[in-house]
């Protein structure tokens, strides 16, 4: 099996080239996760099949001849992902910085 790109883009069609005839090709998005999603492509007996990735991230592409993993890129920069990245970073490191400042603002304590 060969993919036109190891990094296809979500929503943009790409081609899967099969080594041997297979009735269908099964795509599993986020394989192994409880929220995994499956997409089945009918090949119609052809060795080449068009696929439009539905979700970004790691996916497994499987046919009768075997399977391989592929990384599906975002179509552009995901705004929500950037926002969560910034918020999470600010909460965690901002929280740590505030605590650090408060702790070191006080004088070193004497051991009783």
């Amino acid at each position, binding site marked *: 099996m060969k993919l036109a790109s*190891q*990094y296809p883009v979500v929503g943009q069609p790409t081609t899967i080239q099969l080594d041997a005839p297979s009735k269908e090709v099964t795509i599993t998005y*986020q*394989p*192994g*996760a*409880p*929220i995994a999603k499956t997409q089945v492509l009918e090949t119609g007996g052809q060795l080449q099949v068009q696929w439009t990735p539905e*979700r*970004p*991230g*790691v996916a*497994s592409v499987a046919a009768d001849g075997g399977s*391989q*993993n*592929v*990384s599906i*890129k*975002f179509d552009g*920069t*995901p705004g*929500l*992902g*950037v926002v*969560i*990245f910034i918020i*999470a*970073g600010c*909460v*965690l*490191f901002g*929280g*740590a910085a505030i*605590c*650090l400042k*408060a*702790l*070191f*603002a*006080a004088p*070193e*304590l*004497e*051991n*009783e």
Partner: protein
Amino acid sequence: MEEDNTVAESAGRSVWGSKLGFILAASGSAIGLGNIVFFGSNAYRYGGGAFYVPYFVALFALGIPMMIVEMGLGQTQRAAFPAAMNKTTGKKGEFFAWWSLLNAIVIAMYYITLLAWVGTMMVKSFGPLFDDGVGKTFGSVLGSWTPMVWVFIIWALNAVFLSRGTATIEKTVKVFVPLMWAFMLMLVVRGLTLKNGLQGVWYLFTPNFAGIQDASVWQGAFSQMFFSLSLGLGTMTAYASYLPRKADVVTNGAMVSFMNCGFEFVAGLAIFSMLFSFSLQPTASTLGMSFVVVPTGIGHFPAAQSLFAGMFFFLLLIAGLTSSISIIESPVAALKDKFGWSRSKSLTLVSVFGIAGSLVFALPMMLEKGGADGAPLGISLLDLTDHWAFGYSLLVVGLVEALFIGHIYGAGKLRVQLNENARFKLPRYFDTHIKYVVPALVSIVLLFVILKELNISVGWLGLEGKGFYQGDGPFDGLAWLPKLIFAVWLLLTVGGSFILTRTGGYEHEGGAS
């Protein structure tokens, strides 16, 4: 406070040499192997950025409050976990504290076996790690005698780092913890500069809200928070017992929680950029992620694979060591408190039992040639012990701790004591939170764990060993093993706690300590 790291003694109890020393020690204790790989694995499973919703709820509702309680207990009572629970909640509280510490010793046993494998893999990094594939190399490591030698090395290192209490712990963490952050940041830079590495970061943070509609995601986040912060093990109580009386535990507790979760955040960047770049699928187990998935990714690096693999395993080793010293310090301090023994006597006793236990966990893997035949004994011994000692004890102890401190000692009393020196005062709501909200949250998580464990057609999965053996097959000729592991664990921890609670006494009880 003295900044020169000499052991300051306060009424016979050593104290931290500086504020920084305590922060580094406590954060080093919380940050372990699980933080490096397990958070990324959970985020992958439960919807990327969407996992941050339950994760932050868990941090603020469970993590920080319980961290403050555990540290507050140690600092206000100036005692390790059992003595502190005895002073505040009586013999019943002490019993659960000993149970927690005996589980901590069991955890230290197999944790150090894992570190022995890490040490062996670190050496292999500069040799044939990638030649036959990382999975095969790891199998050969498990099947070799080298981890046995590493078991002795790791226990010896722990003994050296703990030999003079806070003085040697502080010296160790002042080197290891900054090094840990530096190595992790190097891995982040390497990950982000890989082809499409940044896409991996967006993949980690972009939410799939289908994930958080599933109740198991919330259970996963709350469990992750509890295990990640090492709550319910008594480690933070022991460390905080060496704080001066006027130390600000509220800010320290929050600080350590933020640093722990901040490290997970950074580790997520390193791991996800690499996984995405090389289309690797995370596994649910720390073992699989640490020893196979991440090193396989490093093997795909365009250059300096050995250097990065060595750095990764060294990072795991020092993260593990800063955690293991706290896990071992906890029972060492408790034995000192209870029986008035010297540090060296308590440390020797715990180390002798610990070495024997670590060898018991490493030996079956070696005899089974590292999994060439599926390693039914080695895998199940490790997984099932972890299942009981780690999976249940932390949650049960956390629940008991919140109930006992909340209702018997009084959450309000603890709050008033802690607020005396706190820069950020705990609100009155803290009392209700510890008395009712935390127990309710931990009970729900425990209930989920039990429901997951109970299978109508099989029974208790842990007792039947289902799902613990590769291939999910029957334990051919070893059907008795899961029940034996459970019985031995229960006998050692519950029986041991009973004996330790009944033996001797504390000064405040008029005992012989």
